[in-house]
């Protein structure tokens, strides 16, 4: 196995992805989301420059449908069999690590909220307001190690507090050293994504 390891350097980390999950009592399919993503391109519904829609619904796991963008991709994602929406940031963002985490989180939550509000689905889709995954798609700056998690916490914890309004979060790292650094954060307090969105977008400009 060719795991090459460097020390984490999260101050420079840009390739951040955040995933939110579809609730157990709702679902969303590629067939539903492909026209929506195309519509988002036509109407400029999301920030940045959307380019195209990539359909990987033939894969049973991993990315299912991507709204490919210049700054980042919006993904209907099935990694580890869990359906959710993820925003993969590709281009650099300004500000501190905490600022960047907040920005990426706002992107994905806004996209998930747009899906929740989309009238074209036969049954409305709902996302969990008490769970989020943070992924670093950069093995150079963020190797999948405990050290990276330690370095992340000072930026992550305020984000989670802002997300839920409390500090009662369980944070755990997925341990396969070859997989990207991936942290699951869960809080017991259930909430709607609508409320989460309101808290995330309070005060600061998007």
């Amino acid at each position, binding site marked *: *196995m*060719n795991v090459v390891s460097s*020390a984490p350097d999260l101050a420079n980390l840009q390739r951040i992805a955040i995933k939110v999950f579809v609730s157990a009592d709702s679902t969303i399919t590629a067939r539903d989301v*492909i*026209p929506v993503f195309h519509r988002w391109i036509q109407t400029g519904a999301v920030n940045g420059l959307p380019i195209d829609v990539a*359909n990987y619904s033939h894969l049973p*796991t991993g990315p299912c449908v991507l709204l490919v963008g210049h700054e980042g991709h919006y993904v209907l994602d099935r990694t580890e069999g869990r359906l959710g929406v993820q925003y993969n940031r590709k281009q650099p963002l300004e500000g501190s690590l905490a600022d960047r985490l907040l920005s990426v989180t706002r992107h994905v939550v806004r996209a998930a909220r747009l899906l929740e509000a989309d009238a074209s689905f036969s049954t409305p889709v709902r996302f969990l307001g008490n769970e989020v995954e943070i992924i670093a798609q950069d093995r150079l700056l963020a190797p999948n190690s405990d050290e990276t998690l330690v370095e992340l916490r000072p930026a992550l914890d305020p984000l989670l507090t802002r997300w839920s309004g409390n500090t009662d979060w369980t944070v755990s790292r997925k341990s396969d050293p070859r997989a990207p650094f991936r942290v699951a954060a869960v809080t017991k307090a259930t909430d709607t994504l609508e409320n989460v969105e309101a808290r995330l977008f309070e005060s600061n400009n998007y």
Partner: protein
Amino acid sequence: MTWKDLLGERVPTALGREIDTYENQIALKRLGKIDDKVFAETRLRRGAYGQRYDNGQRNDGTGVKPLPFPSNGQTKGPDTIWDAPGMQRIKIPFGGLTTAQMDTLADLAEEYSDGVCHITTRQDVQLHYVHIDDTPSLMRRLAAVGITTREACGNTVRNVTACPIAGVCRDETFDVTPYALASMRFLLGHPDAQDFGRKFKVAFSGCRDHACGLVNMHDFGAIAVTRTTDGVEQRGFEVYIGGGLGAVPHEAKPFESFMSEEEILPTLQAISRVFARLGEKRNRARARVKFLVAQLGVNEFRRLVREERDSLAADERWTAYLNELPRYGEQALKTGRPLEDAGSSAYQTWSRTNVYRQRQPGYAVATVSLPLGDLSSGQLRGLADVARRFVGDTVRATVEQNIVLRWVRESDLPALHSELEALGLARPGAATIADITACPGTDTCKLGIASSRGLAAELERQLAKQIDALEPAVRELRIKISGCFNSCGQHHISDLGFYGVSRHVGGHVVPHFQVVLGGKWVENGGAYGLAIGAIPAKKIPDVVRRITGRFVEERRGSESFYDFTIRIGKRALREMLEDLTTVPPHEVDTAYYSDWGDPREFGIGDMGIGECAGEVVSLTEFDLAGAESQVFEAQLQLEEGDFGHADTLAYGAMLQAAKGLIKTEFVDISDDPDQIVSEFRTRFFDSKVFFDRFAGGKFAQYLFRRHARSDPSDDASATRRLIEEAQLFLEATHACQARLAGQLPAAPPPTSALPPTERPS
């Protein structure tokens, strides 16, 4: 910290130096110090391709809209915006991958691409949506695990392919792997292979009968053979030259019936020198070896190569690798053991199509069938682990866009199946009609016309459901799909082939596929099919059902599908599809006006067509329909061996199509060929109105060339080529007509056209 710092000496010095140079060229290009065309060829030679929409234009379903990339005018080639995502091709010689390489590819797909690895029809790997700025790091990380992307594209020797089961095949003469590897190493960066007008493709096959090596469609193809001289068995190759698919396919010509193993590398060098010296350079549409062979004749080409070979200074690399051959071979991880357990029913279904008993007792090859050649990073990493546990260190990618695990102990097969199942990689139906090959098409390819992947996904979905119920003779057929006539999906050499075209219907553009019949997958791609007619994309599943249904009903004994299509004849096959060609008006059924898997309106006719124009269009369409009939009739005559008549019909088809186009400006055009050609030249060629966005005036030249020759040809392959050319001329006429009606963007002037090397095959 950078990847360069971190990887340090893991990157072999020579590769590291090359990548440093490439990175410097990127920096210089950013400073505007390298010309666009030079930089395009530079990155292409490192496998960094353009991708659809990198010209900053996209049809969003309501019209063609600009994509305002923030590149500030920076470009990475003519008409190619810097910030637009690109495709990275990664050359995998003979498809052989180690588990460490698989891990790295999975990482790269996650970090720089979209989390998906794609296996191509030439055993390469492709990553899409890659930013040019990320390519040096990506290449260093590949180099650290022994992969170079050098010469993955551009006018170079491309990936050397070989049978994925070489060394374990029950039918091979001998294992061709070390020869493929030696050829790749010898030709990579060889000074004699740097000045080609186009690409050069090499393939090795262990036998004549099967399709794994596809020698017949390669510039240089070698089939393993032996001969016995004075009681000593000698290894060698039956060599073929000048094959190729593309817009105008050529079957390879026999070059030498027995070339000793010592002569393979010097002959490749000699061919490279002849090709570099005499091959076309300016007209890149006719610059492949196949055109040079056709122009010189194979005998003259052979003579020139032999003469060149005799003049070469000896090089010890020609034969040095042969000393290693006795030691060459893969080590099985475990001792072979026969299967003891029947396994679950899911296992049994899978093993019927995905398991091949090796020549070595107790071992099998398991095929991991990949839908559309794709697998996610997580799956690839998981597969690397499975390979480590079951077979050791290597797997191979196949030209059918799958991956094979070799040296699986037979008794491990059920356990292997369950591990693959857990990864979502135990799809049954490998090497069946439901295991479809498709090029990237409109998903990512700049030249794609229709969605080859969308159609392939739909056909796979429908066929997988009925696979067990299908007659065995149907089950084992192959379907191959290309997004355009360029044939990257290898549609010519399948039982049922399709390639994307468009048709202009009532003010809209409708995605269609040409149906290609008469190809042979077996015998190294032993015969090329021809198009029998264009059918709306949404009706292609019906085409498959009808043709296979008729095959089942009317098959005689163990007749092959190929023989069946020849016996029934193209006329009858076309007749049975005739009703499927009808496209209902847009207001009656919009489904026809979008492509598979893509809800966007396919092209958009937002320009109102005046009544006068409407009438003219009708006249044009009438002529185009007549031209289609003539080209089809030409095929029938070709089949019947009346080459002169076939030639005349193909020529007539081009004239009629040209005449139809002229009618959009000059209704009173006569039937005189001289007048048609002259008017066509003035109105559509000199004005560049007929020019294809990428191919420029190439298709018009087909008409001019044939018109310049007064007598019909009586040569089978020349006639066949003319029919292909007439078909392409017709497609270009359809496209031109659609442009004139405002349904397709106008072609840019050819000076800004992309280099033809951007065609991703």
